[in-house]
């Protein structure tokens, strides 16, 4: 692994169009700014890992006796108090 020392405000350039900038340093926390083209996905490492593991767990579970599992879950869901239901996606765009 390439290891570089950087100071606050300094950057690292990867290829022609990825720029990583050290934006802020607070004790053990470092804020990093990333500029990359739209087709490059940027993830927090631990969240990337967690979602990959959960996708695998979901596929693994769906290989099992999924009908029984679904029926059991449906029964519990129907006896659960209904907390209201909204159909529109209230997502915000940034």
């Amino acid at each position, binding site marked *: 692994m390439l290891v570089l020392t950087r100071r606050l405000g300094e950057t690292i350039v990867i290829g022609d169009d990825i720029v990583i900038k050290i934006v802020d340093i607070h004790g053990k926390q470092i804020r990093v700014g990333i500029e990359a083209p*739209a087709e490059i*996905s940027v*993830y927090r490492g631990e*969240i990337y890992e967690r979602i990959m593991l959960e996708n695998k767990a979901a*596929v693994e579970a769906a290989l099992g006796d*999924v009908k029984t*599992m679904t029926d*059991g879950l449906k029964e519990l869901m129907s006896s659960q108090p209904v907390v209201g239901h909204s159909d529109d996606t209230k*997502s915000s*765009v940034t």
Partner: protein
Amino acid sequence: MEIQHRHLGGVTYSEDEVVTFPQGLLGFLRFKKYIFLQPSEYLPFRWMISIENPDVSFMLMNPLTCCTDYAPNITRRDLNELSAENPQSLEMYSIVTMNLDPRLATVNLSGPILVNKAMKIGKQLVLLDDRYSTKHRIIQS
């Protein structure tokens, strides 16, 4: 076209039902083409099945069913990748991880599936925020 699915048997589909995930799903990056099914015996859950490898299949649910204020942040970049103008034109699902003990079944709120039905493009978001868990219990005891 037909695929064999271990639970649903022979599944017939037409080419225009196939949704492409250009980036695939984490852990299954090789598989880009999925079909969505809602067999009545599994409702309210749906299936999302890879036509390239039908053993790669996910059970989905509407996240709003168990988390009424669910509002993941959808960025312009996400919309661009989905060829969508606004989030309202997208369908949103969350992946369910079934469990032999149904009280332990969870839904992944951190990696929702967005689909632009008109354009047949899908994407799994990897939310940057920590509000939502990958293992949200469906049954709150």
